[in-house]
C-alpha cells in the first residue's frame, strides 16, 4: 500500500489546517474580550459625552437698577411689600439695556431669556441686603433653560432649539459682550429636584442616598457579621442550619424587585410605615444586601487559619473569646471589604425603591430619616424619563456622580484588602 499516505504524513498535512483553527479560536477569544471592553468604553464615553455639559450652567451677568418705584417697593424690610413687589421688571429692563436692537415691543421675547427663578434670587438678595434698594448692582442670574440649551448645543441636531431666530441673535450678541456666560454648575450640587432643568440639582438625592445607606449599613453590617459568626463557628450540624444556609443562598439570587414587593407588603401595608422615606428604603436594602455580606463574611472567617483558634483554646479561652478576641479581628478586613462591595450594590439599586414610593417628585432636601426622599439612582431614572433633553443632560451628570461614588467605594475596598489582608 505505497500509494496510501502514512499516518505521519496525514498528520503533517493536516497541521496547517489545525494551526489555522487554533489561531482562529484564539482570535474569537480576543474578539469576545474586545466586544466586552468596547461596550464598557462606549458606555462611559456615551455618558460623559451626554453629561459633561450638565456640569455647566449658563448665567446672565446684569447691571440691575433696583428702582423702588418700578418694583412697587419702598421698604425692603417689609415682608408684605416683598411679597407683592415686582422683581421681574428690573431684570427685563437691565437686559433690554444690553440689547440695543430690542425695543419695548420685544419685551416679552427678552423676558423669556431670563430664568423664571431669577426673580426669586433677586428678592432673596434684596431681603438680605435691604440697603440695596434704589442702587444699581451687578449681579449674576440663571438664564432660561432654552438659552442654556442654545448656548451649549447650538449645532447639535439632537437638541431642539426653542428660541426664535431673533432671540438667537440676541443671545449671540450677549455672549460676545460677555453678559451670557457659562460657568461651573454649582446649582446642580446645591439644589434638590425641580421642574426647571436649570434649577434642578442632586443634593436632595445625595442626602437621601446617604440617609438610606446609613440605615442599611447600621443594620446589615452587624447583623451580617453576627449571622456569619454563628454559621461558621457555632452552628451545629443539623437540619435547621442547613435550612438557614439554603435560605441565604437563595435570597442572594432572588431578583431585587421581589424585595421591593416585600417592603411594600410588610413595612408599608402591614406596619403602616410612611412611603418614600429613607428608613423603609434602608430596611429593604438591608434585607437585599444581607446575603452578600453574610457570604463574604463567612469566607473571611474561613480564611483565618485553625492554628489561631487552637492556640487561643490551648491557653484556656472560651469559644466565644476565641471568636471575639482572635478570629473576628483577623477576619475584619475581609468582612469590611465584602460589606463595602455590598453597600456599593445597594447604592446603585433602584428597582425595589420604586415600589416603596421613593419615586416621588421631591424638591426639598431631606433632613431626617423620616422625611420623604429620593435616592441618586432613582433621580437618574426620573430625569431619564423626561422628554426634555436638558434633563437628560442632568441625568448623565448625575450618573457620573453616582459612578464616582461607586468607583470610590470599590477603590476603598481594594485598598483595604491590599492594606490589611494577611496571607497565611
Amino acid at each position, binding site marked *: 500500500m505505497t500509494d496510501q499516505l502514512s499516518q505521519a504524513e496525514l498528520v503533517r498535512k493536516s497541521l496547517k489546517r489545525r494551526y489555522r483553527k*487554533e489561531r482562529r479560536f*484564539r482570535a474569537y477569544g480576543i474578539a469576545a474580550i474586545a466586544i466586552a471592553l468596547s461596550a464598557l468604553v462606549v458606555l462611559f464615553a456615551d455618558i460623559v459625552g451626554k453629561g459633561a455639559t450638565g456640569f455647566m450652567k449658563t448665567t446672565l451677568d446684569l447691571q440691575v437698577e433696583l428702582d423702588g418705584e418700578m418694583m412697587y417697593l419702598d421698604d425692603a424690610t417689609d415682608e408684605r411689600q416683598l411679597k407683592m413687589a415686582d422683581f421681574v421688571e428690573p431684570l427685563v429692563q437691565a437686559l433690554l439695556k444690553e440689547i440695543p436692537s430690542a425695543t419695548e415691543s420685544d419685551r416679552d421675547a427678552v423676558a423669556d431669556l431670563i430664568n423664571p427663578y431669577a426673580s426669586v434670587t433677586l428678592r432673596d438678595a434684596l431681603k438680605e441686603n435691604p440697603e440695596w434698594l434704589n442702587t444699581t448692582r451687578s449681579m449674576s442670574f440663571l438664564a432660561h433653560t432654552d438659552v442654556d440649551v442654545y448656548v451649549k448645543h447650538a449645532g447639535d441636531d439632537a437638541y431642539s432649539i426653542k428660541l426664535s431666530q431673533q432671540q438667537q441673535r440676541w443671545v449671540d450678541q450677549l455672549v460676545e459682550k460677555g453678559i451670557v456666560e457659562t460657568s461651573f454648575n454649582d446649582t446642580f450640587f446645591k439644589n434638590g429636584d425641580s421642574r426647571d432643568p436649570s434649577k434642578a440639582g442632586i443634593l436632595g438625592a445625595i442626602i437621601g442616598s446617604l440617609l438610606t445607606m446609613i440605615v442599611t449599613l447600621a443594620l446589615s453590617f452587624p447583623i451580617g457579621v453576627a449571622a456569619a459568626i454563628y454559621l461558621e463557628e457555632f452552628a451545629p450540624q443539623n437540619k435547621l442550619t442547613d435550612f438557614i444556609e439554603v435560605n441565604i443562598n437563595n435570597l442572594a439570587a432572588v*431578583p431585587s424587585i421581589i424585595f421591593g414587593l*416585600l417592603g411594600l*407588603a410588610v413595612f408599608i401595608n402591614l406596619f403602616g410605615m410612611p412611603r418614600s422615606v429613607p428608613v423603609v428604603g434602608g430596611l429593604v436594602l438591608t434585607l437585599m444586601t444581607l446575603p452578600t455580606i453574610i457570604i463574604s463574611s463567612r469566607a473571611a472567617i474561613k480564611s483565618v487559619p485553625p492554628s489561631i483558634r487552637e492556640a487561643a483554646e490551648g491557653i484556656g479561652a472560651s469559644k466565644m473569646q476565641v471568636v471575639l478576641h482572635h478570629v473576628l479581628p483577623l477576619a475584619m478586613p475581609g468582612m469590611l471589604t465584602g460589606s463595602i462591595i455590598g453597600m456599593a450594590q445597594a447604592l446603585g439599586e433602584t428597582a425595589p425603591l420604586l415600589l416603596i414610593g421613593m419615586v416621588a417628585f421631591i424638591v426639598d432636601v431631606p433632613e431626617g430619616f423620616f422625611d420623604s426622599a429620593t435616592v441618586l439612582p432613582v433621580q437618574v431614572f426620573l430625569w431619564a424619563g423626561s422628554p426634555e433633553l436638558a434633563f437628560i443632560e442632568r441625568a448623565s451628570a448625575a450618573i457620573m456622580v453616582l459612578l464616582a461614588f461607586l468607583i470610590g467605594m470599590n477603590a476603598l475596598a481594594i485598598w483595604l484588602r491590599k492594606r490589611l489582608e494577611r496571607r497565611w
Partner: protein
Amino acid sequence: MQPANLLILTLALVVIAYGLGYARSRSLAMPLGGIRHLKSLPFYYGARAALWCGIPALLVLALWAAFQGKVIQMLVIGSLPVDMIPDSEGAASLLLSKISNVASGALPPGFVDAPIAQAAERLQELRSQSRLYMTALVIAVAVLAGFLGWLRIRPRLNARAQVESILKWIFFSCAALAILTTVGIIFSVAFETFRFFQKISFIDFIFGSQWSPQTALRADQVAAEGAFGMIPLFTGTLLISFIAMLVAVPVGLLSAIYLSEYANKRVRSIVKPMLEMLAGIPTVVYGFFAALTVAPFISDLAASVGIDASSQSALAAGGVMGIMIIPFVSSLSDDVINAVPQTLRDGSLALGATQSETMKKVIFPAALPGIMGGVLLAVSRAIGETMIVVMAAGLAANLTANPLETVTTVTVQIVTLLTGDQEFDSAKTLAAFALGAMLFLATLLLNVIALKIVRKYREQYD
C-alpha cells in the same frame, strides 16, 4: 421623642448600665480581696447588666415603632362617626391620606367635613400620645431591667457564661433572619396572590393571551373588564432574556476561555477587573444607555435599511442586558474551567492536540455541566432584571417573537402597576403581586436547579 433620638438615649442607658455593673462587681469584690474572687472578669458583669438593660428596651422600641402607625390608623378610623367608616380598604386609605394631610397642615381644616377635621385632631393627639407612651415605656423597661440585672450581680455569678449564651442567641437570631425574610417574601406575595385569584381565575391568568390591566372606575365604563393573561408578558420576558443570553453566553464564555487558557498573567490582571467593572455598574445606568443611546441607534439603523423597528425594541433592552450579564457568565465559567483537573489538559496536549482542540474536545465537555449551571443562574438574573427593561422596553404587551418590536416583561408590569397611587385591593395592584409570585417561583426553581448542577459538578472533580 422621635424613635431615632430614643434609640440614642437607650444606647446611652446601656452604656451607663455597663458602667454601673462594672463598678458594682468591683465594689463587691473589694471586701473579698480583689477581683480574683469574682467568678468572671468585671467586664462580663458590666456586659451582662448592659444586655439586661438594652435587649428588652430595644425590643419594645422596635415593636412599638413597627406597629404604632397601623394601630393609630385603626383608632382614627374607629373614632369616625358610623356612617363615615369606609367599607373598603381602598376608601380607607384615601380617607386616611386626607386626614393626615389635614393633620400635617397641607390641607386647611376648613376645606373638609367636620368629622374629618376632628379625626385629624385625634390623629395629632394619638401621635403625640404614642410618642410619649413609647418614650416612657422604653425608658422604664431599660431602667427596670437594667436595675434588676445590676441588683443580681453576685461574686459567684458566672457572668461570662451568661453573656456568652445571650450573645450566641443573638447571633443565632441574626442568622435566622434569613428564614424570616424568605417567609416574609412568601407570605407577602402569597397572600395577595391568593386574593388576586379570587377575582381572576387561575386558568385565565396562566393561559390568557391578553394583558390589559385596567379596572373600571365606574361600573358602566367601556372596557370595564381588564384582561389579565400573562402569556404575552411571559413570552416578552423570554424574548428579552434570550437576546441577552445570545450576547452574554458566547462573549462571556469565550473571554473566560481566553483568559484562563491563553492570556498571560499581566493581561489577565488588567482585563479581569475591567470585565468585573461591567458587573458593578448600576442597572439604572444600563437602562439609561439602552433607552437613550442603543434603542434610537437600532431604530435608525433599521430605518436606514428599510425595516420598521420600534423605538423601544426588545433588541435594545436584551442586548444591553446581555452586556450587563457578560461578567456574570465569564466569572462563573472561569471558575468551572479552572476546576477541570490539570491532568486532563496535560493528557490531551501530550497526545499532540493543539490548545484549542484540547479546549473544545476535552475541557469543554468536562466543564459543560458546570457551565450550564452558570448559564441557568444568568438566565434567572436576566428574567429578574428590572431597571433596563423598565427604561428601555415598552409597556405594550405584544405577543411577538420579532426582536425589533416592543414587548413588555413581568418586571416592567410589576413596577408599572405598583408605582404611583394605588388602591390595595384592586385586581390591578394584586396582579402585580401575582406576577411577583410567578417571578419568585421561576427564579427560585432556576437557582435551585443551577446550584444543584454546579455542586454535583464540583463533587465530580474533588
